[in-house]
């Protein structure tokens, strides 16, 4: 591997469970200070990938460098340099918010004075200063998540891994977490790896996004770059008064349109790379042909459309999870 300047760097990283390959020769880099999103359907291999990067699972083959340290060779050094916010709410309900953060800081040998200073600052940042001495059992889900973000930052990690940080939260709490991550990005040089299913979240927060499917990264770019990869994805709905068929044939010749389909007697559906900018051209062309535009609307390509284009519409049958014969389905062994 090249000398490391990236916050995360993988080369042919692979994880197999028996005969099943959960992560298949994945290579990518995350730049320092970047917010990097991992998107993918359930069972795509995101969680396994992140678990390898956070030292929870040893890779079967390949290499991963996180915060300048080899995950396989120096897992403890990696752990000292990363913060992880797992998907499950993991703050201790029987402890106060302050105790949760303080004890977690001790895990990293953060000196007492420094720990307390940071805890105060972080609790302020996540808006929990007033509730710091309340039991976490009295917190809402959103408050717990904010507390866990603060907890994950107590040792000033170089890389922060967040796994579905807003899952199950109400819109207000989601926004609060987003604001928090935005603040972090602006005010520090921390690198953030964000796994999410929410496209708006990825689009809002991430500098670059990797779409993972079947254990591989199938696309990696900025949100707008990903959209550009899908040609003719903006949809223009056009209603005209006039000879619809003739107009359709005429529009098929226009180079800025990808698709032209008749949709009933007076409606056309058009595909374009840049919907808003082709609208005046379409109107001019239709009117120059002697017809009249009754209505026109543009549906811009969303990240979700891009995601579906890359990963398809089919629902995934995830590989069968192990269920304990003795205790039943109480705790299936996750491996995705």
């Amino acid at each position, binding site marked *: 591997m090249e000398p490391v300047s990236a916050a995360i760097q993988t080369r042919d990283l692979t994880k197999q469970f028996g005969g099943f390959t959960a992560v298949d020769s994945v290579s990518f880099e995350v730049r320092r200070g970047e917010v990097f999103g991992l998107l993918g359907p359930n069972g795509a291999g995101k969680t396994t990938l992140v*678990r390898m990067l*956070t*030292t*929870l*699972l040893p890779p079967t083959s390949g290499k991963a460098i996180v915060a300048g340290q080899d995950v396989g060779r120096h897992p*403890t050094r990696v*752990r*000292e340099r*990363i913060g*992880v916010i*797992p*998907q*499950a709410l*993991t703050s*201790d309900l029987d402890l106060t918010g302050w105790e949760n953060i303080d004890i*977690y800081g001790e*895990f*990293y*040998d953060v000196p007492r004075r420094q720990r307390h200073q940071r805890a105060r600052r972080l609790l302020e940042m996540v808006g929990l200063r007033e509730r710091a001495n309340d039991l976490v059992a009295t917190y809402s889900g959103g408050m717990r998540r904010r507390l*866990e973000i603060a907890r994950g930052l107590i040792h000033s990690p170089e890389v922060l891994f967040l796994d579905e940080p807003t899952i199950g939260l109400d819109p207000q709490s989601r926004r609060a977490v987003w604001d928090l991550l935005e603040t972090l990005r602006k005010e520090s040089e921390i690198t953030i790896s964000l796994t999410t299913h929410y496209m708006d979240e990825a689009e809002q927060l991430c500098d670059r996004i990797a779409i993972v499917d079947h254990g591989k990264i199938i696309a990696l770019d900025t949100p707008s770059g990903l959209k550009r990869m899908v040609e003719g994805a903006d949809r223009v709905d056009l209603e005209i008064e006039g000879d619809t068929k003739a107009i359709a044939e005429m529009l098929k010749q226009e180079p800025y349109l990808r698709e032209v389909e008749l949709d009933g007697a007076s409606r056309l559906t058009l595909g374009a790379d840049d919907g808003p900018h082709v609208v005046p051209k379409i109107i001019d062309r239709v009117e120059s042909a002697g017809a009249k535009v009754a209505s026109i609307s543009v549906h811009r390509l969303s990240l979700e459309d891009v995601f579906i284009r890359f990963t398809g519409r089919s629902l995934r049958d995830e590989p069968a999870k192990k269920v*304990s*014969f*003795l*205790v*039943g*389905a*109480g*705790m299936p*062994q996750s491996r995705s």
Partner: protein
Amino acid sequence: MKTLAIMRRDLLKLRRNPLTLISTILMPIIYLVIIGNSFQGQLKHLPVVLVAQDHGEYARRMVEQMLALQAGPKTINLSFMADPGDAIAAVRDGRFKGAVVIPPNFSHNVAEGRLAEIGLFTDNVDSVSASAIEGVLADAAQSIRISFVTAREPKLNQIVLRPSWLFQYVDYDRSLIPGVIVMAIFMGSLMSGVFNWVMDKFMGMTECYLVTPLSRWNIAAGILGSGVTITSIAGIVVLFLGLLITGGRIQGGVPALVTLIAIIVITSTGLLAMTFAILGRASHPRLVGTFAGFLNVILFFPSGAIYPIESFPPWLKAFARYNPETHSVSAIKSILFKGADLNAVTGDITFLIIFMAVTLALASISFKRTL
């Protein structure tokens, strides 16, 4: 129909949790075997030492009666010693439940129609055994009077069994205190140690430990340390509450208290490590709950906390010999009620220390730093 739907749902779930089914069917059988054999009605094989300082006719008759007790109902296992002091010391240090001393002039006194006493020194801390021995030997003395009465016999009704307690009086409630302490230690070790760990694992909370620089040793030692602290405090609180309720006090003062605390800490550590070694890798708290009940029964009832282990069948007696709770109960009884010094409980404490070392080693092998 709606009720049937609920029933169907529950039955399907039960079918897919064989552990629940197994524990429902198998556990009562195991409990019955263990508890049933721990409380077998008439006591048997109680070790009694006899010092026959008189070899006259009536002393011989008493010995024959005792041998008959050994051979017939098997209530006692009879040993012989020459010196009454040694025999009483052997009862004091727990090797025998009672010592019978037939004094040198016993037969002569009987023949002369004078009061003829047989001495009985019992380990009254085990009040169940002491009462049983006293009962059967009183019957034996009675038998001499009845069986051998002839026209020529002297006044045999002057034969008397004179029982003595070697320790201060311990009523039944107080005699349960060591067992209650050991049960508190077991429950504490389970709830503060392995149950917490498995529950955290089940809730996904261990993940936030495993992504930190905490080593396997940090985690294991931390859990063990908190568990031992909580469990030991529970054991000590139960000790004092027990004494408060039953109105007792610790024989032997501060040194005895220190020894008791040491026994409680060693037992706590051993049981915590044992439950970790057995259940530390369980993925579901249900497993811990099921095995906890099972372990509690198989360790507590054969521990001698309620019923003397001498009366158990051989297989259960063999198990009891290697049961850590047996040694813990025995050591606590000796210190608490007999005022025994450290020397008297060296055997029990040595066993507990070895048990602790072995279970700690097994727990460290079993405990993995993985999800």
